């Protein structure tokens, strides 16, 4: 399989993620869009790593770091979403708009 196909997959996934972040109004779905973007990055990193074929597998190790950190980020993210939901009973990001000028 050529590198270009995998990179295209990565780019498509990333674009889907951006669409999710920008178009979805539900905070949980926005977080899922971000996860999609991170996984697109993982696809890219692993594809590049396989293509470059270095001994030290930097790209694969980086992907592992990203998976770990993404889990931590979602943990904090869902905690904050839950906090907001408890108070306002909505997680629609358009309705969380007290701070405006």
């Amino acid at each position, binding site marked *: 399989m050529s590198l270009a196909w995998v990179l295209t997959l990565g780019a498509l996934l*990333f674009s889907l993620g951006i669409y999710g972040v920008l178009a979805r109004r539900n905070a949980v779905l926005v977080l899922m869009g*971000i996860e999609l*973007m991170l996984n697109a990055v993982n696809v890219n990193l692993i594809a*590049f790593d396989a293509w470059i074929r270095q001994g030290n597998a930097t790209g694969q*190790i980086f992907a592992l770091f990203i998976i770990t950190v993404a889990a931590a980020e979602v943990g904090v993210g869902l905690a904050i979403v839950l906090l907001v939901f408890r108070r306002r009973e909505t997680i629609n990001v358009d309705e*969380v708009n*007290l*701070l405006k000028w």
Partner: protein
Amino acid sequence: MPITQTPEVAWRAIAPALALAGGGVIALLVIAARPKIHRAALAALSLAAIGAASWSTFDLCALRYRVVMQGSVAVDGVSLFANLILLVTAAMTVLLSYHYLERRRIHRAEYYPLLLFATCGMVLLAAANDLILVFLAIEVLSLALYVLAGMARRDAGSQEAALKYLLLGAFSTAIFLYGIALSFGATGTTNLGRTAVKVASGGVDARLTSAAMALLAIGFGFKVSVVPFHMWTPDVYQGAPTSVTGFMAAGTKAAGFAALLRVFLVSFGALQWSWRPVLWGLAAATMVVGSILAIAQSDVKRMLAYSSIAHAGFVLVGVVAGGREGLSASLFYLLAYAVMVLGAFGAVIVSAPDGRERLSFGEWAGLGQRHPVFAGAMTLFLLSLAGIPPTAGFMGKFFVFSAAVQAGETPLVVVGVLASVVAAFFYLRLIVLMWLTEPAGEAQELGASPAPALALALAAAATLAFGVYPQAIMDLARAASVFTG
């Protein structure tokens, strides 16, 4: 190279970060063992950890600049100078926080470990010489700051700040990571020094590196709040507890800019001609938009948030100027900005008793008559933010603008000076309110207590000292303007 080779750990070089992270872990363990522990003990522990980190930073100054840990951590002037800014910021934040959190009844024990972890992330970010470490450091500081921004759990504004910061911060990190992946694909390495070698040798795909630089610039732009990636800044700065806001404004900017400088000047230095015009445009837009939007604000914290956007633009002028002059001017500016913005947010913290703050402009009317010392300190910080001599802010602007003129960027300096004139308007508006209007209603006490008063006095002294006698700090910044690639 066999993969099983054990990497060498340069304990001494990462001692500042270890001291902060260690302090944070110890604080967490103490909290787990004794949840009712007096908060003063935790504050003292934090100060001790920050002190240990400062001591090991001074210890590092004696060493030769080099990269350690398989080339992922740089011990050089920029990282050491950034450590100085970050540790001062953290220590002042602890001093400012204690009574503020107490009075607002949000004095949760986790505040201190989170503060230490965030500082640890910032220290690592400033020293990161590998894109993997840049990413990890950004996440360490961001995750801690998301939680800190939401520290006032029952306050709707604080919750909203945390949510917005989290969603936009994670979004920007994802974009930043895509840039890292492309840079890795183009050069086959994530190490900044080796990237520089590859880029300079010319054997890289120009499309990939351009896309990588653009995405990295967007990621950094979000973190240091550069227009047009500044949308989150006013909301988060306004909603977060004020002590956290001051810490974010001073610390994130210093660490973010140190990393931005390192990535663009070291790794992509050979491609200056392609990124400099872009940063030029971002700097101009940031200064102008930040200053103009600040005029319309009626909330002091929000006004300071827009002012922090404008200040990011001024630092970018130094980055665009490049070279040793531009680098040292940026470093000086970051230190000056840290001191004065902590002072300004600190003044907001002590401006009213019982956990309240004077947030709307109207509440500052006539403070000059009732609390002249306090109003004088706030005036000094505002003058410094506006860039009026003899203050740190003026010298900072002077150094970045003169570096830019020397680099032949006079049009950018013209934009910058015009933006500072506009910006002076809203700082002066608050000063006029404090001194030239009659106080209305009942006399309000201040919420001052010894620790924040000490922090404010230190900030005021530094703001004045850097303005009157900038040479010592400027010499230090100039000596520090060295990267080890």
